């Protein structure tokens, strides 16, 4: 794993000049595109290349919600908290889901099964509240239905 990340990061970095931190966000995007996320090892490599500290890179990266810091799960859960879903109890559903799989939005479960994200609208408000797992939308969800649904995924 480490060797792979080190080599993909290096291939990205080769395109950027040394010690020029103005390219930081471009580099982060390119690394995330290849690795799916920003690993601590990749951040070390970037910091060496640009001569900036890891804290600086992490500070910049955490400001933007596009950057992830852990590998994605095998299945990605997106829970909608848009207006309609919120009114229909999306918040309640979200809390139940978070305690069920023991992660907060932006994280991946320890066994690597699920990752969780909050989204603002999935475009099917009539079916609220909705949850999207991988690319399938589950409509009119309840806590019990959601629990059953999760058990179907390996």
């Amino acid at each position, binding site marked *: 794993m480490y060797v792979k990340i080190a080599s993909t990061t290096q291939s990205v970095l080769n395109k950027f000049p040394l*010690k020029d931190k103005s390219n930081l966000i471009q580099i982060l995007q390119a690394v995330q595109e290849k690795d799916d996320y920003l690993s*601590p090892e990749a*951040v070390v490599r970037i910091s060496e290349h640009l*001569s*900036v*500290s*890891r*804290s*600086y*890179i*992490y*500070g*910049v990266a*955490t*400001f933007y919600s596009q950057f992830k*810091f852990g590998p994605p799960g095998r299945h990605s859960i997106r829970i909608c908290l848009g207006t309609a879903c919120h009114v229909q109890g999306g918040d309640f559903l979200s809390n139940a889901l978070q305690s069920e799989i023991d992660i907060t939005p932006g994280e991946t479960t320890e066994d690597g099964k699920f990752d969780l994200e909050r989204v603002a609208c999935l475009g099917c408000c009539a079916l609220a509240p909705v949850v999207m797992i991988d690319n399938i939308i589950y409509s009119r969800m309840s806590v019990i239905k959601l629990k059953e649904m999760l058990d179907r995924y390996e």
Partner: protein
Amino acid sequence: MKVKTGKNISIKIDGEKFSVPDGINVLEATLLKKIYIPTLCYLENLQPYGGCRLCVVEIKNMRGYPTACTTPVVNKMEITTDSPGLKTLRRETLELILSEHPYTCLVCKDKNDCTEFMHSTRKVGTTTGCNFCASNGDCELQDLVGYLEISDVKYPIAYRGIEPERNNPFYDLDYNLCILCGRCVRICNEERNSEVLAFTQRGNTTIVGTAFGESQIEAGCEFCGACVDVCPTGSISEKMGKWAGLPDKSTETTCVFCQVGCTININSRGNRIINVGPKIGKRMNPPQICVRGKFVPGDIVHHPDRITTPLIKKGGKWIEVSWKEAINYTASNLERYRGNQFGMIGSPHDYLEDNYILQKFARKVMRSNNVDLLSSYPNKEIIEKIDKYYNTFPPFEIDSIENSDTIFIIGSNGSISHPIIENRIRKAFRNGTEIIFANPYDNRTSSFSHNTLIFSDGGELLLLHIILSGLLRNKNGEKTENLKLQLKELNFNSACNQLGISGSQVNSAVKLISDSKKLLILAGDGILRGANCIDSFDALFNLQLLQKNPDNCRIMFLLSEGNYYGGTFAGMNPDLLPGFARIDNKKSLKKWSDHLKIKLNNTPGLSRNEMINSISKDGIEALFVFGDIPGNPDLSGLKFFVQQNMFLTGISKYAHVFFPTTSFLETRGHIINIERKLKKTKQVIKAPEDTRTPWKTLSLLAQAMLEEGFQIKKSEDIFQELKTQTDLSFSTNEKPGKNYLPVKLIPFKKEKEHTEKDSLEYNYFHYSGNNLSTLIDDIKTITEYGVLK
């Protein structure tokens, strides 16, 4: 404060006319005129931030409420600093800040009674109010609540529930108390260039932190403590004086740990040091200090293992005795070892006064020239060469480092050995100064250089020679021809191969050096402790002379200990009498013989290593050590061995008498720093009752041995004696020649592969030879981890 032009402009503050320099901002103008505006994020010397929104003011013809710290003054500006509207706005802002900070005590009706009666409620896991906070009484929020008369916070408490970090060396972090003023982040990045702290996340989840939430050690913190000093709340708090109460006295003195000799301010309460930091009520102590100056003084002075009674070894055991008994016992023993069998090793952290009396005792009472300092350099001539250099080119001032256009650093581990000089180098780098960094191993300095030359170990001299030959390429003239001739044998390409660096790297360095108008050369331990130190020194000197204008170029010698140069100046050198007078010079020998009223022994003395090595060959029979030296089984061969130190150490098992000594904070004196400036130190706290300064011990001993000239009452008398006998103003009439020094080509021998451990082999963390990493746990943690590499 940046002043654009020398011009002054006229402004009106609260209806009163003032004239202030152009280019400063409104807040600085009010500070100049001593008008108070509340602020939480502003700090002198840092870029204005405008984060806390408390310094809002009203300015005529300007919309809204601009922040004073980000608004530059312009001519005829009319500023109102206080009005009912501003007060409401500031109160509202502070209430919002407080809603994320445990404020219960701040607005509690019973807070006065509470502070009076609840003394024991403090040491708690989480801070829920002022009475449970280490910074109670030294908190800017408390001051502002008082100033803005806030009696109620209408917002609900938003407790962030962040786990406080208590596993860092030296300081604790509790970001629940953080108000995100950004002072620590800005000082870490702007002033120190350590880049350990950053704002992570965003919006209301923003906190100050490190990458992936790792500890400060892992993030590469250098533990300079600047963030501790500037924090307006209890969010970052120093472990040492944490629950010891508020300081009642501030004393400004000089740090002796390295040659920079920074001014440090020590806050104490009664006879106890609370911390080293800004003065009471202030938040920054410019200039900056480093881990040793900030955290070590209190820890060594109040160390639990400190010895505070004289000891005599009887039957293999240490017995506590009175000073009188110890002095008489030592004096009667020393009587038997007068002459060349006596040796004395002094501490380069002790003052000029101490070291002067040390050598006076050795030369006058013991009739021996075997005097040296604990951490003497492998080649004892180097310090004399440095002194001669100083007489030719007066030493460089630390404040001028940033004015150089090129800095050539060779063989230095500055971030550990001289962090404050490293700090200036980093600032210079950020301002566009060209930095050439040449070292056998990579260290932190290389991130602040566009020209890093990592050469094979032991290659300092060869590198200097190829740089010299590069500089000589375009030079003509009789003298340079001679130099060229001496370097004729040198093959540029094969030399580069031997050093493992590319020719183009060397050439670009040569170009930078020869184009430079104000070159600064920093010579670290790679040069000064290297095998070919004298030749490297000569090469550096020639390099300076090859500059277009050598007078604009300087070499800075990064000597380690605070008073190494000063100790040698006071005469603690086997070859040198006080004032760098050579012992083989008949005139100076006579002068000092006359002064000391004795015919001085003219046998050249032994250096530290020579003394230790001669023990087994019946050379040295009695030794007096001030501090600690590395353990050596040969020491058991000594017939009489006296140690004066703060702690019992590895060599104490060979000692016969042990005298407890004072630390540098418990006595007055002088040191000579890297700028060759005489720096005065003050007594900060009283020394423990039964400890004596080295000069006091020796004057008692000399009196017990019935010697004249040691009836000293105070250290000022010693300084006066030294001042009348030597030239402490360092004015020199003799102008040594500025001729090229001969160059000797020495075949390059590759030394063993350098490891990171080797780079830490020379221990910069010691005080009077005592290893700080065995004495202080937190220093052990950081040296073991190697963060300060």
